[in-house]
């Protein structure tokens, strides 16, 4: 930008910046011409990074204030002094596989029990996530005698499992000292505690357990790195197999979504991972498994943001690390490829879309105005939720315990929460224990989500608040979409197949990097583009997927492949044989 002003008094004229025109006026160049400095970090990424850092700082300061007031409040109410060793009795309801226990009814068995108590209702008196850990000093177990306590809502549903009722006396010290236990608040012991029960013996020496498969997995899950490796393999093996044998990127993406969904979000591995002591590491995985799901590995980023803004992470510094790791892995490396390839909500929407196409119903295409409104709504939800979280955190907004739903500003409108926990005892629809039941507003969101996902492709993705954090990094991250405008015929196929109606891929002819904010990098446009080398999907600068006519034609019916000739090469490159001869032997 070069502006010119007429010389005024002349006192601010410097050498190199003045210029004398033909008519004698002296002009001052406001900015020096010259080579433009390349911008290393794009502005939008920088802005987001600054916003995140400010949020974390605000939270830390907030929580410092909150923690102090909490301590004062706790002492006012007359609770136990901070840091005092507490002793109390609890009832556990434990399920143990019968073949692993040969206990005589009435006999005392020693359990090695690790447990964590979570409290859902009072996010500012006792933050969820700040676990209270204890040591068991005495257990009293009655076999075959089921007594359901008030707080133990998880009822054994499987007949194959026997049920223990156990009286445990626990001594515990709250870890950060700021925690005060209130008898009036209902306590819920997380179901995750049940899985850690280890019964020594059966035959006395426990050799059988060590050789079984489950014992081997028990050992794996003790090692965080091994857990990560298994996790990686469970996703990577099906995806690489699909990449080799599938005929389209769409199929590979579906396999990726399914295996990720199975492995991490609902899968048995998530169940193991949560029981390890390696929780911070596995929680650093970019999993958007809903935190309210019992065996979820981690929590989605919006959950973490809004939760720790409310309750603070004053002493839970590990979660700051988790946030930053998530931030790095999810945003910087993947961008919004997360949405296209791994997100479980996205997968469910894709499945609904597939079902709709199978039935033969038409899809509804949002108009540009509707898309814009939804995109603005995305920011509205996100920033309103963040603001409300901060207000809760600094105790400007306080509610009664019964109104616990309000303490979850974004989660209560998120369809993932009811979707993943709908059949889950304790937090699902089946029970109604205080704030653990699903709020009605979330059920409404779920219904809307499921209905719109049928007729609109990726309907929720257009308003998803998680994407607010991801969007600025799309195009900066390791995965990007490139276009060679010279080869484009503007056939608009890329626009027609796009699940989120990105128009830039179709219309942009000059720029090569066409990764835009709304693009979820599903690479469907690359796959359908019939021009060789027009669109390219790049991973870390390498061409991972390149459009070609052979990829295009392979997605269509077998009948069309007959005349393909050189285009009959396998999908991931490689030269195929020549075409078959024409029918009739002409």
């Amino acid at each position, binding site marked *: 930008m070069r502006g010119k002003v007429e010389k005024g008094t002349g006192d601010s004229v410097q050498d190199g910046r003045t210029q004398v025109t033909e008519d004698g006026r002296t002009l001052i160049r406001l900015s020096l011409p010259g080579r433009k400095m390349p911008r290393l970090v794009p502005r939008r990424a920088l802005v987001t990074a600054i916003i995140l850092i400010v949020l974390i700082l605000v939270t830390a300061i907030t929580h410092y204030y909150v923690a102090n007031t909490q301590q004062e409040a706790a002492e006012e109410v007359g609770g136990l002094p901070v840091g005092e060793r507490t002793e109390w009795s609890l009832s556990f309801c434990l399920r143990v596989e019968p073949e692993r226990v040969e206990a005589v009814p009435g006999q005392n068995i020693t359990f090695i029990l690790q447990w964590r108590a979570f409290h859902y209702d009072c996010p500012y008196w006792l933050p969820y996530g700040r676990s209270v850990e204890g040591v068991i000093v005495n257990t009293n177990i009655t076999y075959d005698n089921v007594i359901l306590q008030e707080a133990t809502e998880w009822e054994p549903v499987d007949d194959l499992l026997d049920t223990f009722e156990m009286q445990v006396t626990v001594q515990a010290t709250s870890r950060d000292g700021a925690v005060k236990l209130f008898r009036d608040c209902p306590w819920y012991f997380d179901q995750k505690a049940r899985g850690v029960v280890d019964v020594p013996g059966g035959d006395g020496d426990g050799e059988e357990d060590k050789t079984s498969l489950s014992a081997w997995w028990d050992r794996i899950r003790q090692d965080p790195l091994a857990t990560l490796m298994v996790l990686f393999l469970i996703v990577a093996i099906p995806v690489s197999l699909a990449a080799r044998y599938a005929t389209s990127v769409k199929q590979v993406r579906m396999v990726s979504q399914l295996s990720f969904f199975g492995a991490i979000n609902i899968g048995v591995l998530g169940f193991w991972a949560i029981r390890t002591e390696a929780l911070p590491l596995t929680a650093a995985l970019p999993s958007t498994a809903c935190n309210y799901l019992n065996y979820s590995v981690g929590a989605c980023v919006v959950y973490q943001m809004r939760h720790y803004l409310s309750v603070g992470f004053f002493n839970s510094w590990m979660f700051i690390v988790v946030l930053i790791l998530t931030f790095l892995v999810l945003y910087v490396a993947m961008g919004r490829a997360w949405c296209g390839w791994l997100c479980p909500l996205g997968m469910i929407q894709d499945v609904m879309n597939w079902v709709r196409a199978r039935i033969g119903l038409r899809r509804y295409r949002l108009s540009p105005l509707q898309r814009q409104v939804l995109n603005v709504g995305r920011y509205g939800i996100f920033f309103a939720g963040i603001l409300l979280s901060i207000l809760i955190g600094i105790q400007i907004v306080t509610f009664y315990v019964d109104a616990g739903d309000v303490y979850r500003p974004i989660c209560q409108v998120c369809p993932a929460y009811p979707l993943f926990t709908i059949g889950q005892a304790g937090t699902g629809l089946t029970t109604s224990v205080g704030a653990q039941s699903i709020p009605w507003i979330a059920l409404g969101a779920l219904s809307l989500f499921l209905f719109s996902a049928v007729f609109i492709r990726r309907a929720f993705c257009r308003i998803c608040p998680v994407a607010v954090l991801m969007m600025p990094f799309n195009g900066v991250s390791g995965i990007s979409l490139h276009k060679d405008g*010279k080869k484009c*015929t503007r056939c608009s196929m890329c626009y*027609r197949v796009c699940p989120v109606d990105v128009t830039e891929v179709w219309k942009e002819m000059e720029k090569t990097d066409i990764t835009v904010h709304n693009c979820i990098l599903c690479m469907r446009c690359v796959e359908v583009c019939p021009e060789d080398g027009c669109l390219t999907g790049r991973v870390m600068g390498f061409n991972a997927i390149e459009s070609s006519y052979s990829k295009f034609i392979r997605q*269509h019916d077998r009948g069309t492949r007959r005349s*393909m000739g050189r285009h009959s090469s396998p999908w991931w490159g490689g030269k195929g044989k020549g075409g078959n001869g024409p*029918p009739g032997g002409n």
Partner: protein
Amino acid sequence: MPKLFGRKRPNIRDAAAAEVPDTRPSAPRYRWKGGEDEERLDELSRIIVGRAKELIDHYQEQMRKAPSRPEAMAWFDERARFLSSPRIGEIEEHKANGGKVIGTMCVFAPLELIRAADAIPVRLCSGLHNTIATGEELMADAGLCPMVKSTLGVKMTHASPFFEASDAVIVPMVCDGKFKLGEVLQDFMEVWMVNVPHIKDTQQARSMWLDEVRALQQQIETLTGNRIYWEELKREIQLSLRAQTVARRLYDLRKADPPVINGRDSLLVNQTPHTEDLSVWVEHATVLAQELEQRVRDGIAVSDPEAPRIMLAGAPIMWPNFKIPQLIEESGGSIVADELCSGTRWLYDPIGIDEWIWDDMFQAMAERYLQPSVCPCFTPNDPRIGRIKQMIEDFRVEGVVYHVLRGCHIYNGESTRVKQSAEDRGVPMLIIETEYSQEDTEQLRTRVEAFLMLVRARRKKAAKAKRRAFKTIDGSEGGDGA
């Protein structure tokens, strides 16, 4: 896709929603005395057909003379004698069985819909030069495109059996000539005019075009009496895809250096499906493609390897108006690429189906005709310039011959821009503005030969510069000494 609801056609409402324009005049709009005298008309028709046959024979003879012509061209040669081609018998048989024939013009008529309704599409843009005088009796504009006048003359004189067999003709309103041609033709036959949006990127243009195609579907269904169902449309889209795949295979084969097929032959191959059954064409084009692939492997060339590689661009060159390609290849040039709507553009762009449901298939089929089209009737037409640049690169083109039909303003209007962008790439361009008549042949020959000499000279100069640069870098010799 399983058949859940039998024969699927879920959007009957959409097709019915489009309004069919009522353009048919109650009485003829024009008076044409020549049409009343049937004897004279028959005589005229005989003369025209006879001369056209002579012309076709002349060009075919010239094409056969070319060295090492592919054997698979025999079928195309037979079919290209379209005034006495065996295809006429097939169409008559189809009509005798109650089938319909629907004529099309330009590249915007949805052929899949026509075929799905069990009708035969034939492209009626004419290349006959001696019907122009008759056409001028009703469209007396000296500055009007000869193709429009020729097409009108063909209908007036009943010269083309394909035109006579057509029950209706689809005329897209792309340029002034086609615009009025459709209006005049309404005196002679049923004409379905189609609005083509000239800005095609916007949402409103897309929806308008979809509605236009839906109206066409309604007209086709009314004429043929056949409802178009999901199965038929899918079958025809797949047939089109097969044809487009073969066409692209042939397109890629023309990148071979030295060329394995003559430009004229290639143009002819691309124009045969204008009237042919596409499935039959696919088979024969596949044979040709295999033969050409074998030639690439064996290194058999159809022309001198040193011949300048020429690209043909501009206004459509319809068979048998092969004056320009004939001139270029006679003068020693080799047409390795063409950017003509009667050439590679006719079958180049495929139909991409996302979901095999009616709506998406229909939309994909309709948009295939509008969006990738680089007809200069659209604005802005940057994709065409980009496309030509890319073709120059892909086919290693050394010179562009830009063919303009006199009076074709939209092609002529873009010629300067194409010339400049070609020259930016170091490729000279020759603009030839001509008509169908043979009068200016010798004059054009001189220009074409001069142009080819220029191309050769440039190549020599470039090679010399390259050698010099190599020597300089090598360090052994400075300058061009020794």
